[in-house]
Structure formats: structure tokens, C-alpha cells
């Protein structure tokens, strides 16, 4: 059948995927700690129909050949780990990482996942956990029952004011984790990422020191989705989709014209 049909089909496929990525970004425009994705397109291989330099007559060569491209594809969806804006909440368990780093979260199966979402809460034993699923923050922090307030310093030291005591008591230290290539992390939902071979191994460090972002208490990091940018992308993808479907209908008309005329 005509190659143009299949070439345009790859265009339609790729634009559909792009629109799926855009709609996921827009759906998460107000998810705390969310990082936007983008689809990366690439052209497919080219097929040589006529080789340039081939003979056109006994002593002449063709100056240019005919290579037909096979269309396009989405090679990757890439997370853009740029910093989101700061949202001040004054809630003592809301933490934001200003700069690079992830919170380490312990999954129920004992493995680690990583998150930028600092909306923490406490479980019934006073452990600091994630708000949705209640996974433990690592290193584990347990807030005593008679604590009046919780103070998290920029370098992650957690202290509490206990009833009847003048001095604050240090109850733990929140360390953050950096990755060489955060783009290589695999998003698994619930604002969590897991380590992969390309992300590199997690490197734990003290916030605020040696390239680790510092912690800000009472603030959250908003999603880094730029809604205007997404809408412009949406317009572009939709129009490119329409043009590719136009090619399909043109080829269809040509083929139907053959059937009618001959």
C-alpha cells in the first residue's frame, strides 16, 4: 500500500502521545512537588529508493537520490526537574526543598522511593509520613506525644519543644538525596520516583551543604507546570494531528480515484 499512509499514521500516533503528556501535565498543574514531562520526538529511519551517485546513463551519475523517511516517533517522555514556586502555608510539617534533592520515602516492601512533595503528616504513633498513603519518611522521625511544636532547621535538624522544658530537644535529622541524572528517575505515581540504572545511585547528604538544597519549613513547592506553555503545545499538537489526518484523507481520495477511473 502507499507508504504515505503509514508515514502519516506515525505522525498521528506521536501527536496523540504528545497530547496525553500535555493533558497529564495540565491535570497535575496544582499537584505539590509535581515535575512536568515533555515528549521528545525523533525522525524514523530513511529508506533509500534511488541511491545518489547511481548511474543515470553510461557516463552520468544521479546527483541526488530519493530517500523516503518513515515518519516520526516519541522516543522519550522526559521529566523536567526545574524548581517550582514557593507556596507558604505556615504548617510546621510542610517542607520544601529549595534547590536539588529528594526526600527519601520508605515503601511498604522495604525499598526506597524519592519525592519532592513535602506535605508530611503524622501517623498515630507520631511518625512523620506522606499524606496520601502514609509511607514513612526516611530517616524515620518520631515526634513525642507531649511535643508542643516542631521546628525543622534549614539543614534538616528536627527539634521539638516539650511541655515544661525551656530547651528544644533534638529528635532527628532529615537528610535529602541527590541523583546524578534526576531525569532518569522513574515516576511511579503518588508523587514518588524510583531509582533506575540511568539515574545513578542515590547520594544522601545534609540539606544546605555541598550542593544539596536547603529545607524550608512552612512552605511547599508548587508544580512546575507552566499552563500557558502547555496550552500553546496543545494547539500545536492538535493542528499537526489534523494535518497528518489530512494527508491520510488525500491518499485515500487518490486511491479511490484510481478505483473509479480505471
Amino acid at each position, binding site marked *: 500500500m502507499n507508504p504515505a499512509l503509514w508515514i*502519516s499514521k506515525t505522525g498521528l500516533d*506521536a501527536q496523540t502521545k504528545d497530547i496525553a503528556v500535555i493533558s497529564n501535565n495540565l491535570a497535575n498543574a496544582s499537584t505539590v512537588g509535581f515535575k512536568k514531562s515533555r515528549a521528545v520526538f*525523533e525522525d524514523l529511519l530513511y529508506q533509500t529508493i534511488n541511491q545518489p551517485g547511481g548511474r543515470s546513463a553510461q557516463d552520468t551519475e544521479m546527483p541526488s537520490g530519493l530517500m523516503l523517511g518513515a515518519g516520526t516517533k516519541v522516543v522519550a517522555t*522526559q521529566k523536567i526537574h526545574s524548581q517550582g514556586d514557593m507556596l507558604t502555608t505556615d504548617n510546621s510539617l510542610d517542607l520544601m526543598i529549595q534547590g536539588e534533592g529528594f526526600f527519601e520515602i520508605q515503601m511498604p516492601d522495604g525499598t526506597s522511593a524519592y519525592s519532592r512533595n513535602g506535605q508530611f503528616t503524622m501517623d498515630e504513633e507520631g511518625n512523620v509520613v506522606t499524606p496520601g498513603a502514609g509511607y514513612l519518611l526516611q530517616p524515620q522521625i518520631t515526634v513525642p506525644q507531649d511535643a508542643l511544636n516542631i521546628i525543622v532547621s534549614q539543614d534538616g535538624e528536627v527539634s521539638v519543644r516539650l511541655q515544661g522544658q525551656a530547651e528544644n530537644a533534638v529528635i532527628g535529622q532529615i537528610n535529602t538525596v541527590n541523583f546524578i541524572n534526576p531525569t532518569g528517575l522513574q515516576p511511579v505515581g503518588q508523587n514518588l520516583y524510583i531509582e533506575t540504572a540511568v539515574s545513578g545511585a542515590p547520594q544522601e547528604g545534609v540539606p544546605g551543604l*555541598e*550542593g544539596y538544597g536547603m529545607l524550608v519549613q512552612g512552605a511547599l513547592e508548587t508544580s512546575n507546570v507552566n499552563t500557558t506553555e502547555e496550552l500553546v503545545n496543545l494547539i500545536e499538537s492538535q493542528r499537526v494531528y489534523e494535518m497528518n489526518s*489530512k494527508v491520510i484523507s488525500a491518499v485515500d481520495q487518490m486511491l479511490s480515484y*484510481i478505483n473509479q477511473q480505471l
Partner: protein
Amino acid sequence: MDKMLYIAMSGAKQNMLALSVNANNLANAKTTGFKADLAQARAMQAFGEGMPTRVFAMTERSSQNFDSGALLTTGRDLDIAIDGEGWFAVQAKDGTEAYTREGHLQVTESGALETSSGDLVLGEDGPLSLPLPVSNIQIARDGTIMVQLEGAPVNAQEEIGRIKFVNPDVRTMMKGNDGLFHSKNGVAQDADINVRVNSGALESSNVNTVNEMTDMIALQRQFEMQLKLMKTAEEIDASSSALLRAF
């Protein structure tokens, strides 16, 4: 049988091939750094014994449109877009040096700098690789890569190397089957120090969609004309055999 039928048939076939070039351009209307292919038809004589009475059409992809695409600002440190003319060098899958304008770079876990299709980015002396771990990567206007090692103070920027840029005459370049550009004679191009890049931006595809749509309509109509000629050939044939039956 009349030769006219075969000439019209070959025309229709070549129109279909040209339409494929068209469809590929439209499919890549959102591929970063893509250069639109130009299709043209050429008269190709039928060689052989006797008089060259017939001339067929032959579609060929003569070259690409080398205009710059629009600049998309992304704000990502490892996105680069070449300002004006020029290319940056990568190592193609077959080990040869190839050129592209698709500046969507990434760092592998071993520190190598590569494009989104996995081709290593070449510096002036071979593939570029970064010492790990780094906390900050900056690509300067002239392609110099500066990194700040993790734990190093902000003023301790380390220079890693310079991306190899070339700016040859585009007539010496051709698009290979991998979508990258290669030198026609296979010899690596000399570096050009005057090429400038913008970091935090990408170059969009330079496909002019209106142009492609118009070309598509033109090809479709031309195709219909070829079929009309084939139909005419059939009618002429039918009437000549009717003429023979009349006697």
C-alpha cells in the same frame, strides 16, 4: 499497447513517492531540529536502442530546507539551540562523525554527554564526558561546558571542554538514513569557532506546514491528471478497436 499508458503510470507512481516525502515532513512537524526534505521531479530519458522518444519523470530528494526553525525556550540547562548557521558534531551509531541541530542533550550514568537519540556529543578532541557527580552544568555561548562539582564552592567552575561546531557549505552535507547529516565525501568537517549557541532553548522543526499542505494538494491533482491520461489511453484504444470492428 500505447506507450502513453506507461508514461502516465510512471508519473502517477512518482507523484505517490513525492507525496511520501510530503507526509514525512508533516509527520515531523514537531520533531526538534528536523530539516524539511525537498522533493523534486526530473526528466529521465528512456535509454536504449533507437530514438529516445519517451521521457519519464523521476522523483528525487535533492536536498533539505536549511532554514533555522523557531526557537523554543525551555529553560533546561542541557537544551541548546544553534544561533544562525552551523551544526554540532556527534558520533553516529556507525562510529563516524555526523552533524545535527537537535540540541536536546542528556548525561548518562557514566557521565557521557549524548543527544536524545543516544549519539555521543563530540568535543574538539573526541566525545565529551563529565566528571561525576556535578551539581551544575552550564553551556556557554561558544559551546564551552562549565561544571561545578558537587560540594565545590560556587566560584570553582571547572571547564570540561568545548562542543565541536562546524559550519560548512550545506551543499557538502547530506542527510543520512539515520536522520543525521553527514559530509558527502565522508571526511570530518573542520571545527568553526564562530558558531554560537543559546542554552535553555531548542530549535523547532523548520517544516512549513502551509507549504506542505499546498504541495500535497498540487500532487494530488497532478496524480489525478495522470490517471485521466491513463483513462484517455484506454478510450483511444477502445475506439480504435471499435473502428476495426466496424469494417
